[in-house]
């Protein structure tokens, strides 16, 4: 210590390798702590309070400690269970993006002229905002003037013109209104969500396929391997890193699904398409006043589910780190 006060320069110079990283880290760390790390703990603690987001005139928060009451309420809340069930449906069905992405990547992994163009066009849906994808599919599913409605009309409807000259359609079956049906709406949204997600998985696999060791493929080919056998025993093992990333981003995407639900159904009809991410927003910022405590409880549950995957991912990364050291 006396050394430090006597000659700060030499202390800094001697310890520069242990001090320097903190100078480089400080801005990012401070920023990240304020907006990400600390809010996580604040949310968890808020889930034990009831709070409408208001402050008393003296500046103190009006939050009231209620213990586990928010979680007890959550347990009895049918909307919560519907959201959780839908989250599960998202998780399972969204996984289809991984094999579908692989399939398209295999289809496109050729070198005919113009292939680059085709590859980037197939990737296109991922670049568009989910809001736009939601609008596109909302319109796509529209039973009156969307794509689904028009195909239906072509199949099941007859066009008739009455005496006044108005065109009406007589349909043997009414066109399905997918997004207004409590049973089908969630699947309609997931299907729309798969579109950009498949594109993402495809690009991961295309990059992976690019780096498959060709000597192994040729050797296996000489041994008579081809088709599915070749794919399963020779190619897929080499694509493991791509598969891992594809699964991780798909799980995260499934649990984060918010934009498309907000755009296509806003959780309806009757809350049947809600997922935790959207339900949290709905209860926390509703027209009937903020319910920050209850919303935070929903968010905490979602966070804990995600934490399982995050821990697994970090554990895998840690294994890789140990190897590379």
């Amino acid at each position: 210590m006396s050394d430090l006060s006597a000659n700060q320069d030499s202390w800094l110079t001697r310890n520069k390798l242990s001090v320097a990283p903190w100078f480089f880290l400080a801005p990012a760390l401070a920023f990240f702590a304020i907006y990400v790390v600390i809010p996580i703990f604040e949310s968890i603690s808020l889930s034990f309070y009831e709070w409408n987001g208001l402050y008393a005139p003296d500046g103190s928060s009006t939050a009231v400690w209620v213990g586990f009451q928010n979680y007890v309420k959550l347990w009895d809340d049918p909307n919560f269970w519907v959201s959780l069930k839908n989250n599960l449906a998202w998780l399972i069905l969204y996984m289809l993006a991984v094999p579908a992405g692989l399939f398209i990547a295999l289809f496109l992994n050729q070198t005919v002229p113009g292939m680059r163009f085709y590859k980037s066009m197939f990737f296109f849906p991922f670049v568009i905002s989910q809001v736009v994808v939601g609008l596109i599919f909302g319109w796509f599913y529209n039973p009156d003037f969307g794509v689904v409605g028009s195909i239906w009309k072509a199949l099941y409807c007859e066009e008739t013109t009455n005496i006044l000259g108005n065109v009406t359609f007589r349909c043997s079956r009414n066109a399905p209104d997918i997004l207004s049906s409590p049973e089908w709406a969630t699947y309609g949204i997931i299907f729309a969500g798969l579109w950009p997600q498949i594109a993402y998985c495809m690009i991961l696999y295309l990059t992976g396929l690019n780096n498959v060791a060709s000597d192994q493929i040729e050797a296996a080919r000489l041994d008579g391997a081809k088709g599915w056998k070749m794919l399963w025993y020779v190619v897929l093992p080499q694509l493991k890193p791509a598969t891992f990333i594809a699964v991780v981003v798909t799980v995260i995407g499934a649990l984060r699904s918010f934009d498309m639900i907000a755009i296509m159904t806003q959780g309806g009809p009757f809350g049947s398409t809600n997922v935790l991410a959207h339900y949290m927003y709905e209860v926390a910022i509703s027209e009937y006043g903020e319910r920050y405590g209850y919303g935070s409880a929903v968010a905490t549950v979602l966070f804990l589910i995600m934490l399982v995957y995050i821990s697994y991912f970090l554990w895998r990364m840690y294994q890789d780190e140990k190897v590379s050291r």
Partner: protein
Amino acid sequence: MFPRPIEKSAPAARAGYQAFLPVALFIWLLPLLAIFATSIRGAADINSGNIFGWPTEFALFENYTAVFTQSAAAQYMLNSVLITVPSVIISVSLACLAGYALAIYKFKVAVPLFFLFVAGNFIPFQILMVPVRDMSVQTGLYDTIAGQFLFHAAFQTGFCTLFMRNFIKALPFDLIESARIEGVKEWRIFWYVVLPLVRPAIAALAVLIFTFVWNDFFWANVLTQGESAKPITAGVRALNGQFVNNWHLVSAASLLAAIPPVAMFFLMQKHFIAGLTLGAVK
């Protein structure tokens, strides 16, 4: 190469493959093509239910101008730019510094800190929503451009740091070592040795973060209220309410919202894909 190159197949198979490609692409992009076709139709076609037939009139120019003159779309677009550009600059700069620290220096908490950034990148937004919104209201950042880009910059710093740290870690360490022996100061090593080498990583991150932030919808809803600070994604939803049943205008507005990230992607394709597929190859 797998599958077997099609050039080695029979000419018929090759021709079949090449003929099928555009068909497959057409089906894949059908929703997008349909909405584009709608965006250039006149109102008459929409009302009479002519969605797939040949348009009776082409209103490409009229529709896209109408979006700007009949709504706040221009304001929304400008807001998106004002939110996105600072987010990219701040998060990438912070990540260059942090990534350098985590990759080059050997100190005890380097790996835990790195994992903190990685983990933060994967958490659901909802766990941050209430505190961030409350903090923004308290500091006067609610419903402002700055309130949004500060949050985005901080959040994206997680992903950027993950990317940068791995990129810098893969650089030859001898470069830094020899600079140190020469007595070069640490920050000068960063500035003159490392920074020029990470340019490809900066480019990849810039396009990716641009797209991520531009396409954000959740925070636009949480942190804004009126037209003055709303980005185009939230704006398109507002337009959707305003242009009910004017599908040609809604389509045009949606496509306008998609243009900047799409342009970014096509201009910087190599960097974009390099960034996105990080870790997909060992």
